[in-house]
């Protein structure tokens, strides 16, 4: 009979690690509950949408090692379909968001199953190319409204009951969607499935030799990531009542990379912090016009050369905890 040996050192460490995540989560929730009373609620809601988007992107780069440079496809197309569903089909917001999310899932299945056939740098180029293709499609098809986008999307009544035109009701909905998405990602990362993903990130050949069908794992991770990006995009469309070409074009794909990189690739809370930082910067510096692009570029360069761990990664490393 074998006895299960628990190494007291690693055991206590891992307990402390989980605790550090729990504490950070509590701080985040508290901050998000207080935030609308301190700053503009609309800004916080928008930032939460982008944070969810960045978390979805980070699921791929941070935990599977796949750099998708075309996540605007899922964000943007979900945003278009949700906006169309709410405005033209007259669906309630939760159904519109669901329709948008499912669109992103479908796009993720198609683009993902093709893109995972190539590794590393080719994967990044492939995803970017597919996103550009769907950008051109969005430019062509009628329902997206071309350069104008879909404007004046009604926020509607949640479940046909709760009026979302008020900021507080909308805030609660966005907060719940964000937290649900975040917890789902947290659950994925810490599940046996997530462990296999990390094994693929570290050494795909080894994972294959251990009998894992890595392509299936990669595809499922890709579809989950695309779906969550779609959830973020749909929510954004209902929240800001607009879907436009900006959401589906390549700078959006670059922006979500930037947010995750600034916060810390492969950290759980990094993309959230990164989104708030980048979005706040863009709000504050909007008057600078094209210089915002230059500043984004400088941040990219600085992050890659000087702090590849990102804000949260550096803090976690300094405190020797996992965040």
């Amino acid at each position, binding site marked *: 009979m074998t006895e299960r040996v628990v190494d007291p050192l690693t055991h206590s460490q891992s307990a402390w690690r989980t605790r550090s995540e729990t504490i950070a989560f509590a701080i985040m929730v508290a901050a998000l509950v207080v935030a609308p009373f301190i700053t503009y609620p609309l800004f916080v809601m928008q930032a939460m949408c982008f944070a969810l988007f960045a978390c979805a992107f980070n699921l791929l780069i941070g935990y599977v090692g796949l*750099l998708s440079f075309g996540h605007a496809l899922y964000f943007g197309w979900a945003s278009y379909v949700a906006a169309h569903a709410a405005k033209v089909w007259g669906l309630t917001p939760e159904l519109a968001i669901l329709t948008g999310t499912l669109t992103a899932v479908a796009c993720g299945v198609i683009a993902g199953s093709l893109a995972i056939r190539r590794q590393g*740098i080719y994967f990044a*180029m492939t995803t970017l190319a597919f996103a550009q293709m769907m950008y051109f499609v969005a430019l062509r098809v009628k329902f997206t409204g071309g350069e104008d986008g879909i404007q004046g999307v009604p926020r509607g009544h949640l479940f046909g009951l709760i009026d979302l035109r008020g900021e507080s009701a909308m805030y609660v909905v966005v907060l719940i969607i964000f937290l649900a998405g975040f917890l789902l990602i947290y659950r994925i990362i810490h599940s046996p499935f997530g462990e296999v993903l990390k094994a693929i990130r570290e050494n795909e050949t080894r994972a294959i030799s251990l009998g894992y069908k890595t392509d299936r794992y990669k595809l499922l991770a890709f579809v989950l990531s695309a779906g969550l990006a779609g959830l973020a995009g749909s929510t954004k469309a209902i929240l800001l009542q607009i879907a436009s070409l900006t959401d589906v074009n390549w700078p959006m794909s670059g922006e979500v990379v930037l947010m995750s990189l600034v916060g810390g690739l492969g950290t759980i809370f990094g993309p959230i912090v990164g989104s708030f930082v980048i979005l706040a910067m863009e709000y504050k510096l909007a008057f600078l016009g094209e210089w915002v692009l230059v500043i984004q570029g400088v941040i990219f360069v600085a992050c890659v050369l000087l702090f*590849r761990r990102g804000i949260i990664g550096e803090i976690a490393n300094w405190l020797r905890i996992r965040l």
Partner: protein
Amino acid sequence: MFTIFGVPSAALFGQLLIGLINGSFYALLSLGLAVIFGMLNIINFTHGAQYMLGALAAYLLLQYTGLGYWPSLIFAPIVVGLLGIVIERFFLQWLYKLDHLYGLLLTFGLALIIEGVSRHYFGTAGLPYALPDSLQGGHNLGFMFLPNYRVWVIVASATVCFSTWFVIERTRIGAYLRAATENPTLVRAFGINVPRMITLTYGFGAALAAFAGVMAAPIYNVSPNMGSELIIVVFAVVVIGGMGSILGAIITGFALGVVEGLTKVFFPEASSTVVFVIMAIVLLVRPSGLFGRRA
């Protein structure tokens, strides 16, 4: 004039010519990307910005020094090549030991910086650049009108592409380059300055992009956005062709330009997406790319 499949011959051959011209830009750019990737292991996202800088340099040379098209064709690539050398020395050389992804992210950041600065000073509307006098006009071939400048672009790009291929595959310096791609440590042990070769390779790749940019200036307007739109299509070209072969990159580039041109004639709605559709098909049928080696 006659018609082919119900399309007037002038329209068909005209689009074919435009396709060949776009194809020559695809070929020049994907060639540069392949050469840089071979030596530096970096996908150069800045390539589109360097192409744009070539066109912009030609415009500025004309505006402020009065230097016309022909001197620009030499000076603009030199200027952009030197800038490339600076970029390699200051930024890229720290990344060679890291994951490929960081190279992509860093060069993406540099592209944003270059594009942002250009947009600030030159706006997003295109700046016109006149055709050189010596290449004005054209010939009427009966079935189509053949502008001189377009012929020149195709001939010049093809010449530059194949010269590059010749230097890399058939000369001593090319042999050093290929050896350094395979095993830099061993090549260094033979007393060859590999880091300097890497720097010069990046400068050369940037200069190639700028050369394409100068040639594009009279056809398309000079605009800060011209690079970022092109580079993504070139990425698809690279995925289709694979970066293992120089000749493969050249052929794929020209071929896709032609296919795109023909699509414009027969199915105009799909002309902007056809390259990506081909990429999807290639990924299905031959995942390692047409000329790629299995990774």
